[in-house]
């Protein structure tokens, strides 16, 4: 269970660039919830995910998973509970390290790094199997540097890394936005498959309304640093893009004027 209680974050406070990014976010996710997050640019979607991950401290409010208080923990300590995939395929992997080395790093998420071997033979076999299931041929290139992979391959690998050690919460931050439509669709399918199989509590930010409707059991919409819409169950199953836009207009008191969303 994830809890966000009245979480606030202002960037560049008391300057001309002051930006209230999170304006009292309240959110509660149950185990197994697969929540899609939509909203315009600057609505606070990515900021919310970064607040959960601990990229920087929040100004006030509290964040907890299963009652375990995360609010004041540094990023690397929270990592034990979180799997993360980022928008930029470069962010989630170490380009100058091998595929299997990246996986080995991820397999030790939340553990003390000791002077034991960084990767063992049994691990290699396990990774080979898991990579084969991605269907990208990566199982035959395990000692290749990750920098040689395409964006889609890197995102698929990052997804595998994020879930290699089962996280309490999976954070997908527009992880298909930088990919071409076909690859994006493939990575989304893969994401859903992994989330369903492992019964993962997931927050997925997307700019694509159709994807937001199609995936997950619950949808939230953010605007100006707040959650303004929360739809789940049967209501979510029968959602359409038009209904979402109407709902946005009603909740925010303005038309959903965002090219990037209307076009996608």
């Amino acid at each position: 269970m994830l809890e966000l209680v009245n979480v606030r974050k202002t960037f560049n406070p008391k300057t001309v660039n002051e930006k209230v990014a999170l304006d009292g976010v309240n959110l509660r996710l149950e185990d197994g919830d697969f929540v899609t997050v939509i909203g315009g640019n600057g609505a606070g979607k990515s900021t919310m995910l970064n607040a959960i991950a601990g990229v920087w401290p929040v100004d006030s409010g509290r964040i907890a998973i299963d009652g375990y208080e995360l609010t004041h923990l540094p990023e690397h300590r929270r990592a034990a509970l979180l799997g993360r995939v980022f928008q930029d395929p470069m962010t989630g992997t170490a380009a100058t390290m091998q595929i299997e080395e990246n996986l080995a790093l991820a397999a030790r998420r939340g553990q003390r790094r000791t002077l034991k071997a960084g990767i063992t033979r049994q691990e290699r076999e396990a990774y080979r199997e898991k990579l084969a299931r991605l269907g990208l041929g990566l199982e035959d290139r395990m000692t290749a540097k990750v920098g040689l992979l395409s964006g889609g391959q890197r995102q698929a690998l990052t997804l595998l890394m994020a879930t290699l050690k089962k996280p309490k919460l999976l954070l997908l931050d527009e992880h298909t936005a930088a990919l071409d439509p076909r690859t994006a669709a493939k990575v989304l399918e893969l994401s859903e498959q992994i989330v369903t199989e492992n019964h993962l509590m997931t927050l997925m930010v997307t700019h694509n309304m159709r994807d937001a409707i199609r995936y997950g059991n619950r949808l939230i919409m953010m605007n100006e640093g707040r959650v303004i819409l929360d739809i789940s169950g049967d209501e979510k199953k029968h959602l359409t893009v038009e209904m979402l836009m109407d709902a946005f207009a009603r909740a925010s008191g303005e038309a959903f004027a965002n090219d990037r969303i209307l076009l996608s």
Partner: protein
Amino acid sequence: MNITSLLNALPGAVAQGLIWGIMAIGVYITYKVLDLADLTVDGSMATGGAVCVMLMLGGVNVWVALVCAVAAGMLAGLVTGVFHTAMGIPPILSGILTQLSLYSVNLAIMDFKANQGINVTKYPLIVSQRNVRALGLSNPIFTTLIVLALLIAVLYWFFGTELGSSLRATGANAAMSRAQGINTNVCKILGLMISNGIVALSSAMLAHYQGFVDVNMGRGAIVIGLAAVIISDVIFGKLFRNFALKLTGVAVGAVIYYIVIQVVLWLGLNTNLLKLLSALIVAVFLAVPYWKANMKGGGRRA
């Protein structure tokens, strides 16, 4: 210009190159593995020698003195690491601050004298310039090669461990490392400590080799280290993929650097202009990747 005088100078150049090669491996760890340019080395390249020589003059066992020298170097790295991580000072500036303070520290270690001699006939030095043309185990080239082999073996093992891998990951992608639960600050500090420990070992051996320690002996060390790393990149970059081979390449790079210096001196360059020459050569080699990238970028725009 007599070719025999050059040939006579070569064993010395090789021995010096190998000792500086140890230092260059230290620089490689910060510059290439951790992706930090650490200027602490200009200070710790004198600290190691100062600690080792002063302890030996005080009657301490040579091996104990060497271990203390390494520990002193690691302490210097720790200070730079704390400046950078706990105090948020950019890495280059952190290194400069430590380097500057080390000048005073080194003088203090050396009893506030600019140099301190240590005589090979009275003290059991592990390497000495006097034996550079000797055939046998007393030759400093032989001893230094053993030290290098051991050092490369230990580093190869370490960077294959979980902890070593997390150091490499920190240098490769810090954001990803934190997302994978790696404390990147601790990794940076640890890397700086290992690097400066190695530099201090090189410093102690250089003091043994030349028979004295000088407070200025580390001046420009970072440039020599970078030169060795770059030379090895240019010559062996495509050839050596394995980490141990890369480290070996860096040591060879330092030897090549010293041979080139020897040749330039033999050609009649004023010794005092050496640092200018080194700096310019390193500047050009550092610029090459930038120029290459710009040429490609220009092509795309056209």
